[in-house]
């Protein structure tokens, strides 16, 4: 391996030496007895030069050997395993806390200085690999890059990741350098206990314990009415190594742009005393006029300003349109309407409103929804619409009298004409089903359940009676509530509005877009894309392709999203504003903020170096310091050739001088 290709120029010395010897002056030989009588200081042959046959003498070969040694030295020629130059493997903490500043500078600048010193100690020919320890390890420099390149890259490096996964970074570093290499870690923290005893880690802590106030939780709620204010729930924590009681912290909210930007407008400014223990929870109310777009919240400056700033995207409005399909005089309509009205993000859908969009959720009497063609034709629905059938389609019976069909229609063919005895909750529920979240059915009297066909999967059951079921073929959006609503106590219990709210929430989750617009680092986002119709030919006969969804990171990096209706976006490892675009249109925007108390807690920051005192470490380090190149033997051979040549050439001179 050639370390320095410019050293090839040195090989030109070989033809130069041969040329010199070709043109070397040749004389007739004559033996004399008193050579010393001939020699004269300053006497120089004055005849011209002619090409002569190359003379095979020691001087020629020694000079060629010397030139070859010099060329190999300058070429930095290395062989086999010894081809490796001194290689510094550095893991650099890339988390936000490295931005922390103290009276004597910042942790990041101290890390740069430390790396510079390490590279100086390793020598000018050293190589370096730098792995950034973030949420995912990333190679900043290398593998085995020249030291000057590393210095240039470090000039522009700014720690910006929300957290540092040190084990993963160390694993990557060892993959780059081999398992036996010593990895130098630069972080503002001391090594965690799990790594403290690892022998091949040279942990250099470059932090300083300083006080810091940070946003550790944020949530923005959108006012549902047009003139309703947005509300921001904020949690501020204070980390003070001196353990002082409280510090005054100013909270500012800007719109238009982040604080400090000329385009920003101050919306709100409040001053609070934040306690060291317990922090502070506040609720900020942003008037509707100021809350139309994104908001930026910031705290007064401290050691780590980055964790006191956050961007808050206004959550989109995603109302669920609920249609009711009951006979006008059916009391169940009122029960359902009352429950829907209590849910803020649901609205009753009436075809007469002129809304062209299909209903998102249809709650109706089972007997009216026996046949989709028959029942659904009355209301605009689509393949995404969820259904809740109420009742087992049994003949409605008066308290003890004969049963009668509530709708006057024929009995549901899926249900047997048999009614369960009155049942008293709680009942057996399928654990974890989103429809049943928060439901207990405690002391709920359940009446009017009928026998359901085998196409219904029980979600809530009592004995062999299925009380709430999901349609096997359509378990996500088709449910049955096997009850005579007016006869039991379900509608009087809190479980009824909860059940409807769960149904609405479940449907809401499947609305296009996402419930969440402001995430903490490390969280994933579930995104529902609009149902894409099959490409249909337009008027000109051309097919309309469904627009591709693209995820754009804060850095501008674009990722194409797969053509699925529901996506879970994970690994969102960049702080800032993200955007999902479909074609040219923005489909969903969301912000990722740090909000990590572990990064904001600078009380644990330290400046020291773990003493690599274990014998194994010291020994290993000395092994790695052995220069494996050919320099030593090359220098020896070169010196031998030089002095031998000097001696060979000097012999006649010595004799002459004597």
């Amino acid at each position, binding site marked *: 391996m050639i370390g320095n290709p410019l050293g090839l120029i040195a090989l030109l010395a070989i033809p130069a030496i041969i040329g010199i010897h070709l043109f070397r*002056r*040749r*004389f*007739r*030989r*004559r*033996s*004399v*007895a*008193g*050579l*010393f*009588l*001939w*020699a*004269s200081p300053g*006497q120089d*042959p*004055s*005849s011209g030069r002619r090409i002569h046959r190359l003379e095979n003498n020691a001087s020629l070969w020694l000079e060629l050997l010397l030139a070859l040694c010099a060329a190999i030295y300058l070429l930095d020629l290395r062989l086999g395993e010894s081809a490796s130059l001194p290689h510094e493997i550095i893991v650099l903490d890339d988390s936000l806390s490295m931005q922390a500043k103290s009276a004597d500078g910042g942790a990041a600048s101290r890390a740069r200085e430390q790396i510079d010193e390490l590279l100086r100690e390793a020598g000018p020919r050293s190589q370096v690999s730098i792995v950034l320890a973030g949420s995912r390890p990333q190679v900043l420099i290398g593998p085995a890059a020249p030291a000057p390149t590393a210095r240039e890259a470090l000039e522009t490096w700014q720690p910006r990741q929300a957290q540092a996964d040190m084990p993963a970074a160390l694993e990557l570093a060892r993959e780059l350098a081999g398992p036996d290499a010593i990895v130098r870690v630069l972080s503002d923290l001391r090594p965690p206990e799990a790594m403290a005893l690892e022998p091949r880690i040279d942990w250099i802590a470059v932090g300083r314990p300083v006080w810091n106030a940070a946003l550790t939780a944020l949530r923005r709620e959108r006012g549902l009415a047009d003139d309703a204010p947005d509300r921001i729930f904020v949690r501020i924590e204070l980390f003070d190594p001196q353990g002082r009681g409280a510090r005054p912290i100013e909270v500012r909210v800007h719109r238009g742009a982040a604080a400090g930007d000329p385009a920003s407008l101050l919306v709100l400014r409040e001053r609070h005393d934040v306690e060291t223990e317990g922090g502070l929870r506040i609720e900020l109310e942003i008037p509707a006029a100021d809350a139309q777009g994104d908001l930026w919240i910031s705290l007064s400056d401290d050691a780590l300003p980055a964790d006191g700033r956050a961007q808050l995207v206004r959550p989109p409005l995603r109302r669920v349109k609920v249609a009711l399909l009951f006979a006008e005089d059916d009391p169940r309509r009122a029960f359902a309407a009352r429950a829907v009205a209590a849910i803020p993000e649901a609205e009753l859908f009436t075809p007469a409103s002129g809304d062209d969009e299909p209903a998102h959720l249809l709650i109706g009497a089972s007997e009216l929804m026996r046949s989709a063609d028959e029942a659904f034709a009355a209301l605009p629905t689509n393949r995404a619409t969820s259904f809740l059938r109420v009742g087992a389609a049994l003949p409605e019976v008066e308290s003890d009298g004969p049963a009668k069909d509530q709708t006057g229609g024929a009995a549901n063919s899926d249900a047997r004409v048999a009614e369960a005895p009155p049942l008293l909750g709680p009942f057996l529920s399928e654990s974890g089903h989103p429809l049943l979240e928060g439901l207990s059915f405690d002391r709920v009297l359940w009446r009017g359940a009928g026998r359901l066909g085998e196409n219904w999967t029980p979600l809530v059951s009592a004995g062999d009676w299925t009380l709430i079921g999901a349609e096997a073929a359509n378990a996500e959006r088709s449910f049955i509530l096997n009850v005579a609503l007016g006869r039991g106590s379900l509608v009087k219990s809190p479980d009824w509005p909860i059940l409807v709210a769960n149904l609405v929430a479940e449907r809401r989750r499947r609305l296009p877009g996402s419930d969440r617009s402001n995430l903490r680092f490390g969280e994933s986002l579930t995104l529902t894309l609009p149902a894409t119709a099959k490409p249909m030919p337009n008027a000109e006969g051309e097919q309309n392709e469904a627009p591709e969804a693209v995820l754009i990171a804060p850095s501008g990096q674009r990722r194409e999203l797969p053509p699925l209706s529901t996506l879970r976006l994970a690994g969102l490892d960049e702080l800032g504003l993200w955007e999902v675009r479909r074609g040219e249109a923005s489909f969903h925007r969301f912000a990722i903020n740090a909000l990590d108390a572990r990064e904001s807690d600078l009380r644990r920051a330290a400046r020291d170096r773990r003493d690599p005192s274990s014998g194994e470490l010291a020994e290993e380090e000395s092994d790695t310091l052995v220069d494996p190149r050919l320099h030593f033997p090359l220098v020896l051979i070169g010196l031998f050739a030089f002095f031998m040549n000097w001696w060979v050439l000097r*012999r*006649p*001179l*010595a*004799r*002459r001088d*004597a």
Partner: protein
Amino acid sequence: MNRAEVQSLSARFTLRVDSRRLRGRAGERLGSGVGSSLEFQDYREYVPGDDVRHVDWAAFARRDELVVRLHREEISPSVEIILDTSASMASSAAKCERAREIATLIFETARRDRLRCILWVLGAGIERLDRSADIEARLERWTPAGALGIEALAQRPPQLTRRSIRVLVSDLLVPADPDIILRPLARDAASISVVQVLDTEEEHPDFRGGTRLEDVESGGSLDLVVSEEAVARYRKRLLALREAWSRSLRRNGGELAAINDAIALDAAAVGPLRDCGLLAVRGVEGGGS
């Protein structure tokens, strides 16, 4: 090597020696000390321990005191030839040959003078030969090739015989201080002579142009465009070197004889070797015993 010419020259010349400085085993020459030869030298008072055979009883009878007759010492002095056989002596065949002839001439002359001769050979090491047969054989089959030059004389001085006649035969082309080399060589010497043998081309280089000069001993080389100026500089340095050796020799009581292969052996014997006081014409000059 022309052995006949060497024999002829050795018959014509003798080694010039100063008997006052001679020492040696009992032999045929009178030494500088008191000995037991027949030649009367002096009287002195008798002291206990003197050989009573030397008491002059006639004088005792005349003067009533014991006196001892002192006679001249009869010695057999040594001639030590230090021959440089390092690789530089073979830079040319003529130079090598001339050096061998000079060494053989001195050896043969010494033998004819009945002097004891020792040959020190510098080359692969410092080798001492004292038997005439060995010396003769060695001078016959001498091939310069060793790396040990005369500078070794300063580092590892040979155990030379006291009061011996010492002759160094070398090209002297070593970048060393002559004093350092000569000092151990001249210590306790009866006389010392240095014969510098060079190739003609070494004295007067006749090559020009781009040349890689390679030292035959050290292996060092020098790329040089040999111009007139370079040759002039070389000559100047060579003469300076020779002058340095001469000065050093004079300080140590000796002389330098510079010879090259262009000079015939007999001319060398009559010329530089005689001029430096190493040889003398037998029976005419004061050489011999």
